[in-house]
């Protein structure tokens, strides 16, 4: 049987399917932003953007773009009915006060203890950009990571211990990759789901940390 890996839209859709109605969710820049496209409007999930937008709606048609309404990725967005604007301190009070049910972030590395590295690739990278990642990682009730399973060079991004500078300690609860969905548990990574046709051994070979299977 052929192994297929999940495409980015499929990864986003897979994660989106796990978000229940009523959650307040922040989506990080990059692939995580795609998650919103896979949550139907009638399943009311309230998306937050750390620049002070609660209740983000889909991107507008170009003729309806309002230059004062962007998301944290600087893309034009809309506001849903029921949405609200707040300032930066209030927005991060939401984030840091534990009011977001979920934050979806990209990552360079996730360790089996939930440590997250997603902002700098070296301690000597003297001017890396952190943005709101540390606040989101430390403050959200749940952090789910959405990322490719390996680097372009084939190195596992799931690791025993992060080698890159950390964003937050032990914050990641679940990881969605192009190969699998894994929970971070007391015992390390536990596989919840595998890409179609992928064997456990194949996944283990591409993962630089022990795997448990649910």
């Amino acid at each position: 049987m052929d192994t297929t890996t999940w495409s980015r839209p499929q990864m986003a859709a897979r994660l989106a399917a796990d978000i229940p109605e009523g959650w307040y969710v922040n989506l990080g820049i990059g692939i995580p932003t795609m998650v919103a496209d896979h949550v139907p409007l009638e399943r009311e999930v309230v998306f937050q953007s750390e620049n002070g937008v609660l209740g983000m709606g889909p991107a507008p048609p170009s003729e309806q773009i309002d230059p004062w309404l962007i998301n944290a990725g600087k893309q034009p967005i809309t506001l849903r009915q029921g949405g609200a604007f707040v300032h930066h301190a209030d927005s991060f009070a939401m984030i840091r006060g534990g009011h977001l049910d979920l934050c979806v972030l990209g990552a360079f590395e996730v360790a089996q203890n939930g440590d997250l590295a997603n902002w700098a690739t070296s301690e000597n990278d003297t001017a890396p950009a952190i943005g709101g990642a540390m606040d989101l990682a430390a403050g959200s009730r749940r952090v789910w990571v959405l990322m490719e399973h390996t680097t372009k060079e084939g190195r596992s991004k799931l690791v025993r211990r992060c080698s890159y500078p950390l964003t937050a300690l032990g914050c990641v609860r679940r990881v969605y990759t192009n190969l699998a969905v894994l929970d971070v548990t007391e015992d390390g990574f536990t596989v919840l789901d595998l890409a179609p046709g992928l064997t456990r051994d194949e996944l283990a070979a591409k993962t630089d940390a022990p795997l448990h299977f649910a």
Partner: protein
Amino acid sequence: MIDKIVRGIAEAMAGIADGSTILLGGFGAVGQPDQLIDGLIEQGARDLTIVANNAGTGRTGLARLMELGRVRRIICSFPRSVGSVVFEELYRAGRIELEIVPQGTLAERMRAAGAGIGAFFTPTAYGTLLARGKETREIGGRPQVLEYALGGDVALIEAWQADRWGNLTYRKSGRNFNAVMATAATLTIAQTHHVVDLGALDPEAIVTPGIYVDRVVLVPYGERRA
């Protein structure tokens, strides 16, 4: 569909446990969630810690809850005021614990709880009885007192308008502690004078976004306790 509107006071108060810390909104009579307090009396939870600006007046509302022996401890800025007879009786009898907090520190401690700040340094109360035993430190040339976040299990608040997502506005000085307490509790319950359609509230003028609100119950103005 998100719908935080519940059908009555009893449903609004469901599940409040004995031993809870309850944040009670309002300043004087303004913005006080009278029907929710009555609902709490009805609901039966005991051994409560109450956080409020005052310690109740007369023999109704918070004073009634205290008179029934349901309040173990009260944290407030202004316990003794005209008509705070129940509190004073209980306090003299040693039947209620009191923590006095400067009003601004009280508001800021709840804001901290809502904002993920564990503790903060403030000049307020430095050198006074209310800072006794507290850690102090000079910062920016001013001696300051370390104060800790103060969160609640439940917040009971009064709003003016609400929608089904739990977005709230307040009326004039009715905003007071209500908007702060909404952020600081695990379970925030609002009584509101008006329920409006989703989208009817100006997104620039929503004071408490629904993320902070769990249950909303309609109590129109006419039903306000006399």
